[in-house]
């Protein structure tokens, strides 16, 4: 519970229906899509405008409480979880598309706009918004900005940061800054780029300018079926290495295929296969067939048992179905799911996939992989039951080993889901104390008091706060 005086001011600022104090209704906000972390917020505020966000931030700060920005809560790293009775500022009611500026191929949005809705609105102008997280019918653009989200089609088109050209941000002291905007050119440091991926720790994005792309004329989708997952990994590596630039390259492994085929989402993938590879090309009709033929040939060469080609939109949707419904299907076969998100150099995919499978076996865990193979961005899903304490411990150990394996191959611990609460204790796998300290200090430039989403991304700052001080050995003289 938050102090009554705070509750009162929040109601004054955002209206009675814009403040949630009721314990039961607060439960809805206790976690994001990674349900392993649950903490009930002190209150939830749902402002409608930048002004209201500023007012709410000031009121909360006056009471010395931390603030957690929240979009749709589909995050997979615990980023929107409110620790220590923090107040959640949710963007659900800031969901207006402010402008679709077709001649300049850009849009200006409130942060609570749902990703897929932007593409629908832009579609009227022959445009669309390229980053397409698999959660796109639910997640918000504000959440995408905070996580620097990717999606299946980011292989060809790049991730969120490539498309964000301007931001209005409310900082921890309630002030508002405008970064970038009006297209790509703006003098000074790339503060827009720095903010993207800051996981709610730098401030609350209240207005977002993004670039749009023209809808490609044609799309061609293939599905390669493999008896060995290594071979599918090899096909990915070969396709990328051959100079083809598919829009998407996604792998669904055997356990996932079986989960999907056992569920209401059955997509017609052969259940004895060990991997399915979705390959999609887009662009001018004229070039597509040639690219598709080359990709199919490379799949065959890598050992594909079969390559299917979609002839029309219905067939295309069918080929994608197994990929898109994978998470939903897995959710049905195990009570809990831990999704990893490491990225590795693409050429290491075959050996990494084997390594992950070995780790799973060693810890007696079911690991199902469904992932953005073209980018080398893995999603090993560990299926488990949280009530079994021993299993939970094995899950934690296995997941750390998987991360270590990926880092050792030249990769990183998270490609798109963010660090949040989940991976902050693994940040030291890739960064040393100096890098972590630099990140702490940059965070303090935006939020000196540590009000915005504290306890996320960075492991606790153990060293003495050095401010802008110099490292040892400097000074004097």
């Amino acid at each position: 519970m938050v102090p009554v005086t705070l509750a009162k001011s929040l109601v004054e600022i955002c209206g009675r229906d814009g403040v949630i104090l009721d314990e039961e209704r607060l439960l809805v906000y206790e976690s994001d899509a990674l349900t392993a972390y649950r903490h009930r917020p002190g209150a939830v505020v749902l402002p409608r405008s930048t002004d209201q966000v500023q007012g709410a931030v000031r009121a909360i700060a006056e009471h010395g409480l931390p603030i957690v920005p929240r979009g749709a809560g589909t995050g997979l790293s615990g980023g929107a979880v409110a620790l220590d009775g923090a107040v959640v500022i949710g963007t659900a009611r800031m969901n207006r598309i402010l402008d679709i500026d077709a001649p300049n191929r850009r849009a200006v949005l409130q942060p609570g706009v749902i990703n897929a809705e932007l593409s629908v609105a832009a579609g009227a102008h022959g445009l669309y918004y390229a980053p397409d997280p698999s959660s796109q019918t639910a997640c918000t653009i504000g959440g995408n900005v905070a996580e620097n989200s990717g999606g299946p089609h980011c292989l060809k088109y790049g991730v969120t940061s490539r498309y964000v050209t301007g931001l209005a941000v409310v900082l921890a002291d309630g002030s508002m800054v405008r970064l970038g905007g009006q297209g790509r050119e703006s003098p000074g440091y790339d503060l827009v780029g720095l903010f993207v991926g800051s996981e709610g720790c730098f401030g609350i994005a209240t207005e977002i300018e993004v670039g749009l792309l023209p809808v490609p004329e044609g799309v061609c989708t293939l599905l390669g079926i493999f008896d060995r997952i290594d071979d599918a990994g090899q096909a990915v590596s070969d396709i990328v290495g051959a100079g083809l630039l598919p829009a998407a390259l996604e792998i669904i492994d055997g356990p996932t295929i079986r989960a999907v085929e056992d569920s209401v989402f059955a997509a017609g993938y052969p259940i004895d296969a060990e991997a399915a590879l979705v390959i999609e090309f887009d662009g001018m009709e004229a070039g597509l067939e040639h690219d598709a033929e080359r990709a199919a040939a490379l799949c065959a060469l890598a050992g594909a048992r079969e390559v299917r080609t979609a002839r029309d939109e219905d067939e295309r949707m069918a080929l994608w179905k197994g990929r898109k419904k994978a998470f939903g299907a897995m959710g049905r076969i195990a009570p809990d799911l831990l999704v990893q998100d490491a990225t590795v150099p693409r050429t290491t995919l075959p050996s990494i996939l084997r390594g992950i499978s070995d780790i799973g076996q060693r810890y007696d865990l079911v690991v199902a992989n469904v992932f953005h193979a073209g980018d080398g961005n893995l999603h090993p899903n560990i299926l488990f039951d949280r009530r079994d304490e021993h299993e939970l411990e094995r899950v934690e150990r296995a997941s750390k080993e998987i991360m270590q394996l990926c880092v050792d191959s030249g990769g990183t611990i998270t490609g798109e889901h963010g660090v949040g609460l989940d991976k902050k204790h693994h940040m030291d796998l890739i960064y040393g104390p100096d890098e972590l300290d630099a990140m702490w200090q940059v965070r303090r430039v935006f939020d000196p008091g540590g009000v915005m989403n504290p306890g996320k991304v960075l492991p606790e700052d153990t060293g003495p706060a050095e401010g802008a001080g110099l490292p040892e050995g400097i000074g004097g003289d």
Partner: protein
Amino acid sequence: MIDAGVARAGDAEGPAVVYPASVEEAAEVIRAANRTGTRLIPAGLGSWLGAGGWTGPADVIVSCERLNAVQHYEPADLTMTAGAGLGMAELDDVLRPNGQWLPVDAPGVGAGTVGGMVACGVSGALQGRYGAVRDNVLGVDVVTGAGRVLRIGGRVVKNVAGYDLVRLFTGSRGSLGIITSVSVRLFPRPEADVTLCYGGGTTEIVALARTMCTSPLPIAAVEVEAGGENGETVMVRLLGSVGEVEEVLSRLVDSVGPKPRAIVRGDESAALHRDRGAWEEGSALVVRLAALPDRLADTFGRGAALAGALGGEIAADAMSGVVRVKASPDAGRDGDVVRELSRAREEMEAAGGTMTLSQARGEVAARVGWTGGRGSDGGLGTRIKELFDPASILAARCP
């Protein structure tokens, strides 16, 4: 070798140049500078050291020329890690045999180093198709102005672990630290490269450029030139598979705009654009006007007026709405030049755009200001500069 004279015009001796051969040596230089209050300028080959301008004269230039090794290149990963001092031309020599490239066509970029490219963070006309420089830098190693060695980002194409400090160093123009190594994302070299050239009067070519920019066809870049030897020209570049490029070409010729004056293919097309990279060479004054792309006619008009007054030429990247103006060293008396530039700045800003100086004589730059209105970042940029360069030993200011 760096021409030390460029850094302190008028001073016969000029600053000293040091050439660290390792990250440790670079860090040593920075630490020594902190101890002695020496002002440094990090540099590549010094091919465009004037870019952005700096607050005061420097004592020492730190050249990254010797940090030029290819550290990691696995072609099938489409990524590369190299020392900051690797020349862009040498980089291309390594990539070409593997059918790959780094599609950065920022002005003059081919003459410099990968570190300089990242430090300047400027993108050219291909950014619409391939992303800006900042979108393709995966990681950097830097020595900050405080003497800390940071290895940030990585060499994989997707990475959201921690705050994106790579973005901060990209475009920092030597003001936060020395970039010692860079990891970039590469692309397959397109099978086909075709440029369509159109002529016409200014109004026509600007309108044609806009038509091209708003076409749903996959066009890689649209550039406009005026005031030079070739008169007014629009260049429309197509890159991709042979099938796709030929299809777009025939549709453009059949149904969009007038007949092109010339169609340039393959190596010739590539060479045309490569040569244009040196467009600014020898200019004492280079100005960059930018506004939303649909304001191209106004921005171009503004640029043309400036070029007219200074006896210069203009080139535009129509897809980004950027117009560049270059003028010869004898562009006029400082007072007149300053007046013209200040007016251009005022008009651009009034229309929501920007006017920045890429290259200018110190006197002129001091009076006009390199970047103009600092926007409303609430002092964040300045605090970031203080954070990484607390003793202000890096001569470059926050750009």
